[in-house]
């Protein structure tokens, strides 16, 4: 089995409003404000506002984090990790193999038996609070590295990914000595060693989603970051050291799909938590069948974003834009199927066309950038292939006219109209900045169409009518429903899917359940 990195994921935060992040104040002014002769003293050219990168230093090479120390990989091989916006190498990363996974699991088991399960829960909490505080202290460096390694706009990593990662540790720290209130009248105990495999779209945030509840419940961890985005996980390893977390409680083994597969199949692992594509998730479910390992899966999505005619249209358009173009569309809960009530199709399309032209695409380190780089060449090719299929299947394509840099991986914000319900772009997860626009007439039709997919991760509903929101929410088979908003995340709020979007929840009280035995 090959566990290549997943495509899907998620994220959370607390008090951030994504529509603020994708602000209309960044409207492109180049065309309208071309300087004339009279104003030749003033340049109206766009002036980038680049985030500084001189306040931290990356090592040239990162080893595996096992037993509290950075150790060389058994393979003695390292691979380059790049900046997808420039294709420049940022550092060399250790290629962990099954031997390294075994070492990590052994250390995690030792730490579990000898230290972590024996520590008073209130003391466990204090370690996790320390981690939260250290992430807050180092937030800017983490944000910049996240942006350089993953391609996401700095305003997203700075305002969403990193603060939410800290918030997640803060939230679960508090649960460590309160588990009896989450599972009343039962004995609550940890499971043991958790193997966790995370994707590349929200690297540090996904690490936080996985590690924080596992530690709070008393488990130890072996984490496998995504192949293309290992850097912030390794900086997190340094934070674990700085927090004096006992050696072996968290181990981080970098590598590609084979490394993840070794972790999934290791007999010493008691629980697997995976976030990634539905395809890989199914393989993991088969691989763990009959082994007694507990499993949670956070998989793909093809979320319906449903706009009724009574919705505040400008607000809805901002929600649609945020829903699909946030993080270049590399979001498992992206609102990638837009369902518009027929009576408002024309104004919605017009506003969408205008709005995508104003999205600033380019250097992710520019604080004005709305849409950054595609995470990898492979993902760019996958997006292009699906977009080509949409054109071939007869849908009409609209694309932003923005220019993109010569180097790096880029895809212009795109949407399709005239999309057939059965077409690939209406059924398959694109995981890029590509929206399919479809229509409906009645609420019943909207429900039927929204549910007509194998996925069930999330959905959006736009209407002024509260009773309709609640009725629609009760009928849509999805784990998260956003009403008159989209892409909201918070550590206290459970996230996860119905159907082939996976099972288990991350976040909130319910996010503890995957990491405890209740007897």
């Amino acid at each position, binding site marked *: 089995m090959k566990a290549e990195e997943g495509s899907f994921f998620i994220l959370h935060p607390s008090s951030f409003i994504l529509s603020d992040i994708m602000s209309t104040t960044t409207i492109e002014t180049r065309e309208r404000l071309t300087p004339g002769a009279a104003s030749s003293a003033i340049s109206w050219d766009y002036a980038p506002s680049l985030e500084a990168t001189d306040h931290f230093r990356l090592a040239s090479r990162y080893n595996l984090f096992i037993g509290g120390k950075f150790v060389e990989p058994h393979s003695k091989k390292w691979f380059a990790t790049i900046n997808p916006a420039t294709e420049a190498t940022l550092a060399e990363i250790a290629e962990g193999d099954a031997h390294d996974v075994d070492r990590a699991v052994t250390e995690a088991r030792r730490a579990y038996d000898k230290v972590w399960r024996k520590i008073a829960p209130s003391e466990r909490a204090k370690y996790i609070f320390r981690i939260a505080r250290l992430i807050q202290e180092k937030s800017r460096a983490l944000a910049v590295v996240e942006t350089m390694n993953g391609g996401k706009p700095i305003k997203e990593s700075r305002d969403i990914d990193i603060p939410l990662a800290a918030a997640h540790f803060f*939230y679960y720290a508090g649960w460590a000595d309160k588990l009896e209130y989450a599972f009343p009248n039962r004995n609550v105990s940890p499971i043991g060693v958790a193997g966790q495999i995370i994707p590349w779209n929200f690297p540090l945030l996904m690490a936080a989603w996985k590690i924080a509840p596992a530690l709070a419940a008393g488990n130890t961890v072996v984490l496998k970051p995504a192949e293309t985005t290992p850097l912030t996980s390794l900086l997190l390893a340094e934070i674990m050291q700085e927090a004096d977390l006992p050696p072996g409680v968290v181990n981080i083994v970098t590598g590609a799909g084979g490394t993840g597969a070794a972790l999934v199949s290791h007999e010493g692992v008691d629980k697997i938590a995976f976030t990634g594509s539905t395809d890989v998730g199914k393989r993991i479910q088969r691989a763990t069948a009959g082994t007694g390992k507990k499993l949670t899966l956070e998989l793909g999505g093809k979320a319906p974003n449903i706009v009724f005619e009574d919705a505040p249209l400008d607000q809805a358009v901002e929600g649609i834009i945020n829903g699909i173009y946030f993080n270049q569309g590399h979001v498992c809960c992206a609102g990638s199927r837009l369902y518009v009530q027929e009576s408002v199709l024309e104004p919605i399309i017009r506003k969408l066309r205008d709005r995508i032209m104003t999205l600033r695409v380019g250097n992710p380190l520019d604080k004005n950038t709305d849409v950054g780089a595609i995470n990898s060449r492979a993902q760019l090719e996958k997006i292009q292939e699906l977009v080509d299929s949409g054109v071939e299947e007869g849908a009409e394509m609209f694309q932003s006219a923005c220019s993109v840099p010569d180097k790096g991986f880029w895809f212009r914000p795109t949407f399709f109209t005239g999309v057939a319900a059965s077409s690939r772009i209406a059924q398959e997860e694109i995981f890029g900045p590509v929206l399919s626009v479809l229509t409906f007439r009645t609420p019943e039709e909207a429900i039927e169409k929204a549910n007509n997919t194998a996925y069930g991760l999330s959905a959006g509903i736009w209407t002024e009518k509260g009773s309709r929101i609640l009725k629609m929410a009760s009928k849509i088979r999805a784990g998260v429903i956003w009403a008159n908003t989209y892409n909201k995340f918070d550590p206290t709020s459970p996230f996860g899917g119905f159907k082939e979007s996976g099972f288990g929840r991350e976040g909130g009280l319910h996010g503890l359940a995957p990491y405890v035995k209740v007897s």
Partner: protein
Amino acid sequence: MPRLNVRKTYKLYINGEFPRTESGRSYAVMSKGGELLANASRGSRKDLRNAVQAARKAQSGWGGKTAYNRGQILYRIAEVCEARAAELIDELRRAGSSAAEAKREVEQVVDRWVYYAGWSDKYPQVFSSVNPVAGPYYNFTIPEPTGVVGVVAPETPSLLGLVSRIAPAIVGGNVVVAITSESKPLPAITLAECFETSDVPPGVINLISGIKSELVPWLAAHMDVNAIDTTGVVADAIAKVQQTAAENVKRVVHFDGASIGWNDARLSQSPYAIFDFQELKTVWHPMGM
């Protein structure tokens, strides 16, 4: 000649400031050995009223902060108390505790703040509900802070007792006017300096030192106080406080520290201590196309 030390004036803590009592009165606080430690402020009815007024003004802002924000401020109090542990231990020792007792009490004070900080964004998850009513309605019940809480701190442990009663009140979005231990008020006033450097907004916690028999009846009678914690009220005065509280239907809460003790965290800290100062609100909303 050795340098002469500068002594601290122990004043009240109202609205984020350290005023002297408006009454100008003080009372002598003595050590175990009978030496004068300091002249503490002997707070008055007017001081209490000022404190309630400040608290009321602070409530909507404090209760309106996100749970995450309140949790971080409580955690910050823990950080500052830990950093100033030596000073707090010194206060407790001067008030009569042994070195070991004082150290243990301060460690528990820090841990209690951490414990309640962790509850800030969790008690609503434990105490709220979605109610499956028999009809096309979405129906849920959520806790909300009751408002201004009067706390009468126990005489001893003067610091842990006070913290154990005010932390669950404020983590739930309430604001507090507390009457400190009458015999050992000084550690509490030094603790206020920790609040003042922890981003606790002015008026959220107010501390009045003085003579309880003088102050408690006014706190119990104040019409803008929503709840009163009688933990530190002498046994034979509790019934009177309960009667007085009926005037504006105050919630009356009591923790029997004398029998339960304060040192066993399992018994002396609990989310139900937060729940005691919460109102419950049920919302009905129709469901339909």
